[in-house]
């Protein structure tokens, strides 16, 4: 058994894949350079008359401002429809906004406020304080928001000597450290907490408002957003929250003075399920409400009102209204209706529309010039067009100012057009790719897939020849050389190029050396043209189309179903499914051995068909656990995805709870039953302890936890403290128990029970096994699972050379329980423990999906085992090699259950609730919640990857059934019941088969990563690239990383067991007989 070479080979292969992914993602994801310059009051913008400062040249319209940010204040929430007599919980709850806008139209205005995607809170705060456009790469920063370096409103207000007071969401404090005159932050991460932030604000806002120690007051309410995340918009809690907000607005408006501007805005909207992050209109459209008691809208109402206000436009508008410079890199456009026309002379202090626009245009032009000097990503021709447009504008404006003629209205329109076209150009070109890096990453990934294929065909050759070491050394040398050349030539060495060269070099060297070592004819491209690989090709091709990605869950199920049906059809084609017909005797003999009894074949085929039907029904039922993408119009998310606490009907809640409990207990029972059936629960030992005690205990804890978390908050008021405590303790206890189980399993993975026995010469009957009384398995079944002969047989084979027979020696013989499943039992237990742990991170209803997963995995394993049995019954093939079909089935099932556990490859559908299981108060760091969410998202990939080696063991485990049925005819029974001990007898074949299996699994997942990389690379200007392909790539790549890590973990456990078995034999066998 070559343990280390296997692990090293797999590690090398995985790291090559990682390097490829890293290179590609580095070249693909968008990067925008930040311009770290700030505007100031003394600035003279380029084509102005000399000496005349541009910003702050007049008195500000408003001395003070109150900015109320209501997180996720969707545009719909702010509307008021008096005819709607039966409003839903989120409708007509903010009448004050509509009241003000209609009763005092010149003082108040309500707009739809459109955010740019990604609609996550931190990006939005960045957007409406800096006025710039976000890029895709920012998405991941939501957990650890760091300070904004670009010029922004808060900084400008501070520089102008305004006292900015902030209260609410603590994200602001980390974004603007030291930017506030006074700040009252409240913790924001705990989504389940609806009231802490809002109540904190309400306690402080009115005293401050009435006092005089402020100029700009920013309050960020989080209750509405958290209510959406927790309950969805269509819930009484949302009505309560919005009504509360209505009261807040009313009291703030009452306290406003004449020189104060009130801005109420939502940073983003929410979907119908209360989530956000994407770019559907429901998520981007928020509300914007402006009010001032001294009059706000000075333009005559005949002027066209903007339908929708882009979020960036708030920045220049607020800046000019408050008399501070527009932040340097703002891309926004002033909101014209808030400025007086030149002709209205009633307000001499204010900037006129034309002046405001002119300053805005000059500021944007200055930013554009600075940015195009720093970076080259804005295409030259559009830059040229924009410059020409600007010079035309400026000559027109200046000439009309010189002559004193009123500006033509067309000029205003032209300036607005200029601002919009700059915005559009920037938005388009900040999709900047690095094509060389992308191509390099693609090449490395292709090479890795080729290496995988070669390795899977020639695993034994590679293991024997030791190809790895020179390849890795050569690769390292190539990488160092590239890094050195770049260092000398360019003066800087970027790590990614060296890594890329190292990966590519080692791949090429590996392929070349394997080619040299491989016997002729072993490797042919025709091996690729088999049905499972063609199906894999179809799966990969489906990743190139956005429609197929949108309905990916169904596509994968379709392909799985096809491959499942293919198994018996293929067996029938080879003539293995039905017993050979009696008419065969007339045919020329020698086609296959006639000794196979038809009854055995028939029983095995029936079993196979039963497995297939279980598989098919699991596939069909799993479709009902899917979540919905926003693109799928008429789709209802599964009812089981709703956490119990969100269900309002108590009967439905009870039914769901009972169903989940049944699924949970079935999961635990099936595991326990399997382990007991194969005799792995006998005796005492730490692994058995974790199977016997920890597993049921953890399940009980989980059931209690679900009950506690399902309890509605207001029903048990006197027990609230206890419930709160239980919410923390129960999941932590189950995590602890399961973690302890995993640890114990790793420390002592042997689930074998040895029983010494007196010398058989005493002639007495075999002492009854200890566990008969407790379990009630029939003595006949015991005979099969004791594997008593097994150990003796192994010892005999080892003792062949020794002179004396063991039995006659009088040395005590040993019975070994559970030796037949010595490798698979720890793996099964590991999967059971891991599965429970991951189930805890999911909504309770997903327990059913997990049970389905267990059943389907078992059905797949048995399908594979029966296929092996049927084909080996009639063609006598040897070796443990796992063919492609089960591997592809296994890997597709991982993708299928990714969808069937309610996940989707989109960012808004990530189940953030997983981070709060056991930590309802939120977290201090970011590592723990991030890993919990990762575990939750890639649950099915983790389980299937860890369980992957079972594909190798299962045909051997199922041997018992075959021999039992075969015994009636063939007399060679006892010899055959070696089960997994066969693997120990052929360590060479075992290692090559294990390596082959792992590499095949890696190839199947890697091919999918390669396909989505290709999709992202070739379709990078596609309309759907940021909505479909890029998220899919991120999810597929992360799934690959997670599943490869857990695959390595599973393989490592197998090797650990192998070490332990070797130690056991070492200990048992007397010195002289070895």
């Amino acid at each position, binding site marked *: 058994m070559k343990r280390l070479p296997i692990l090293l080979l797999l590690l090398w292969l995985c790291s090559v894949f990682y390097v490829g992914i890293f290179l590609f993602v580095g070249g693909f994801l968008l990067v925008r350079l930040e311009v770290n310059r700030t505007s100031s009051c003394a600035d003279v913008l380029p084509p102005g008359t000399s000496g005349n400062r541009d910003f702050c040249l007049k008195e500000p319209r408003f001395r003070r401002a109150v900015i109320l940010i209501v997180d996720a204040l969707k545009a719909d929430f702010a509307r008021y429809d008096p005819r709607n007599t039966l409003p839903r919980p989120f409708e007509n709850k903010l009448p004050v906004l509509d009241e003000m806008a209609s009763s005092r139209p010149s003082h108040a205005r309500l707009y739809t406020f459109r955010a740019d995607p990604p609609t996550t809170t931190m990006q939005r705060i960045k957007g409406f304080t800096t006025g710039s456009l976000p890029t895709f790469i920012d998405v991941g920063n939501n957990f650890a928001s760091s300070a904004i370096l670009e010029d922004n409103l808060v900084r400008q207000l501070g520089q102008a000597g305004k006292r900015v007071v902030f209260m609410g969401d603590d994200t602001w404090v980390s974004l603007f450290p030291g930017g506030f005159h006074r700040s009252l932050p409240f913790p924001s991460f705990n989504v389940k907490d609806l009231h802490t932030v809002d109540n904190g604000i309400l306690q402080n806002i009115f005293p401050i408002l009435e006092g005089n120690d402020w100029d700009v007051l920013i309050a960020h309410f989080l209750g509405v957003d958290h209510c959406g995340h927790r309950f969805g918009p269509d819930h009484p809690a949302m009505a309560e929250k919005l009504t509360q907000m209505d009261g807040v607005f009313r009291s703030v408006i009452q306290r406003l003075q004449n020189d104060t501007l009130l801005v109420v805005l939502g940073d983003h909207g929410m979907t119908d399920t209360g989530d956000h992050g994407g770019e559907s209109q429901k998520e981007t459209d928020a509300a914007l409400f402006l009010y001032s008691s001294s009059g706000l809208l000075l333009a005559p109402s005949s002027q066209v009102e903007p339908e929708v206000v882009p979020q960036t436009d708030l920045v220049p508008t607020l800046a000019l209204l408050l008399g501070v410079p527009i932040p340097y890199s703002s891309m926004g456009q002033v909101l014209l209706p808030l400025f007086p026309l030149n002709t209205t002379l009633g307000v001499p202090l204010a900037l006129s529309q034309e002046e405001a626009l002119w300053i805005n245009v000059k500021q944007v032009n200055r930013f554009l010039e600075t940015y195009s000097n720093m970076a080259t990503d804005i295409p030259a021709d559009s830059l040229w067009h924009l410059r020409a447009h600007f010079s035309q504008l400026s000559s027109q404006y200046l000439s009309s100012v010189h002559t004193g003629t009123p500006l033509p209205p067309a000029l205003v329109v032209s300036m607005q057009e200029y601002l919009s076209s700059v915005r559009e150009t920037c938005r388009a070109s900040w999709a900047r790719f690095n094509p060389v890096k992308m191509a390099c990453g693609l090449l490395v990934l292709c090479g890795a897939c080729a290496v995988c294929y070669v390795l899977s065909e020639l695993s034994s050759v590679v293991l024997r020849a030791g190809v790895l070491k020179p390849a890795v050394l050569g690769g390292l040398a190539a990488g160092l050389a590239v890094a050195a050349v770049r260092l000398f030539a360019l003066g800087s060495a970027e790590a990614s190029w060296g890594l890329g060269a190292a990966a590519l070099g080692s791949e090429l060297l590996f392929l070349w050396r394997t080619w040299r070592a491989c016997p002729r004819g072993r490797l042919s491209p025709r091996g690729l043209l088999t049905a499972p690989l063609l199906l894999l090709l179809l799966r990969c091709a489906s990743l190139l189309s956005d429609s197929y990605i949108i309905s990916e869950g169904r596509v994968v199920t379709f392909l799985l179903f096809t491959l499942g049906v293919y198994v018996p059809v293929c067996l029938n084609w080879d*003539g293995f499914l039905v017993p050979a*017909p009696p008419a065969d005797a007339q045919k020329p003999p020698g086609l296959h051995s006639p000794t196979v009894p038809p009854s055995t074949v028939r029983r095995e085929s029936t079993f196979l068909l039963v497995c297939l039907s279980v598989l098919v029904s699991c596939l069909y039922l799993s479709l009902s656990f899917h979540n919905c993408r926003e693109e799928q119009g008429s789709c209802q998310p599964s009812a089981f995805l709703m956490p119990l606490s969100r269900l309002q009907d108590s009967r439905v809640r009870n039914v769901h709870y009972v169903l989940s409990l049944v699924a949970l207990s079935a999961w635990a029972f099936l595991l326990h039953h399997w382990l007991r059936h194969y005799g792995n629960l006998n005796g005492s030992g730490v692994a058995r302890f974790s199977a016997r005690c920890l597993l049921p205990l953890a399940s009980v804890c989980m059931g209690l936890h679900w009950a506690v978390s399902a309890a509605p908050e207001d029903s048990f008021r006197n027990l609230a403290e206890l419930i709160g405590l239980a919410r923390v303790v129960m999941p932590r206890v189950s995590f602890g128990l399961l973690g302890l189980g995993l640890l114990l399993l790793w420390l002592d993975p042997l689930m074998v029970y040895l029983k010494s026995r007196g010398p058989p010469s005493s002639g007495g009957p075999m002492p009854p096994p200890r566990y008969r009384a407790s379990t009630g398995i029939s003595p006949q079944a015991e005979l099969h699972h004791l594997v008593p002969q097994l150990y003796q047989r192994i010892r005999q084979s080892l003792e062949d050379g020794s002179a004396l027979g063991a039995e006659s020696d009088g040395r005590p013989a040993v019975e070994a329980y559970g030796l037949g499943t010595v490798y698979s039992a720890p793996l099964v237990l590991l999967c059971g423990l891991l599965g429970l742990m991951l189930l805890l991170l999911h909504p309770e209803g997903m327990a059913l999906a997990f049970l389905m997963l267990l059943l389907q995995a078992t059905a797949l394993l048995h399908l594979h085992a029966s296929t092996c049995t049927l084909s080996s019954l009639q063609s006598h093939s040897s070796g443990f090699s796992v063919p492609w079909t089960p591997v592809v089935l296994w890997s597709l099932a991982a993708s299928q259950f990714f969808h069937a556990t309610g996940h989707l490859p989109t960012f808004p559908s990530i189940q953030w609730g997983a981070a709060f299981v056991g930590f309802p108060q939120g977290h201090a760091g970011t590592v723990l919640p991030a890993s919990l969410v990762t575990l939750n998202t890639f649950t099915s990939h983790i389980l299937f990857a860890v369980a992957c080696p079972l594909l190798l063991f299962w045909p051997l485990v199922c041997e018992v059934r075959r021999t039992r049925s075969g015994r009636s005819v063939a007399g060679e029974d006892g010899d055959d019941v070696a089960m997994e001990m066969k693997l120990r007898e052929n360590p060479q074949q075992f290692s090559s088969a294990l390596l082959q299996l792992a590499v095949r699994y890696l190839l199947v997942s890697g091919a999918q990563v390669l396909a989505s990389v290709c999709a992202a690379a070739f379709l990078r200007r596609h309309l759907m690239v940021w909505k479909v392909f890029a998220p899919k790539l991120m999810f597929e790549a992360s799934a690959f990383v997670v599943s490869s890590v857990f695959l390595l973990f599973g393989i490592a456990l197998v090797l650990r067991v192998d070490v332990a078995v070797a130690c056991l034999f070492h200990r048992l066998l007397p010195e002289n007989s070895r």
Partner: protein
Amino acid sequence: MWDVEIRGMTSAHAIIAASIFMATVIPVVLVDNFSVYGTHLVWLYSVACSVAVVNIAVFWLLGISPPTKKNTLNYKLSRLIRSCVYFVLSCLFFHAVVVLYGAPLIESALETFSLAVLLSTLTTLRCLCILGPNVQAWIRVFSRDGWVAMSVWDTSLQITSSCSIVGAWFGAFPIPLDWDRPWQVWPISCSLGATGGFLTGLLAAPLWIRWHRKQLTYKLK
């Protein structure tokens, strides 16, 4: 001997293909507003009926059906009834399979069942005509051993049946695409795929047999 058999099969296949063509053309005259997409079910049943009638007629006239042991009326009647039962069962079977593949369970059940009828006509009915109501024989035909054992008609049965099913399978591919074409509506693409596959099979079977006639060792009847 070879040429005669192949020629006979080719002409039979040509007749069946022509019947499908006629089944598409004739309703244009008879039915108002007939179109393959618009009144799809009419087209589907017209194709299914014509294929069924022509198949039964051709195989009955050519006398391909397996030799019957007893020639009594009673036996023939029971055979006929068993054939009908098998046909209905196969319709139900195909319906179940199609639903498991992801077809809607309750809404448009009629469309799904019609597709099942079409598939049964293209596959099971031919099995019934050539092999009689004998499931064992059907299973054996679709194996490698069956390949060498039987007559030229079995090979044709194998090819046309698998082509129809694979065609229907491929027909499901365009359904999720967002092209908004009339033929993407369930079950139009699948039934068109099945018919297309069947026609391909009709064309491919004689060519294939002719190409591989050296390797094929039929037990001549």
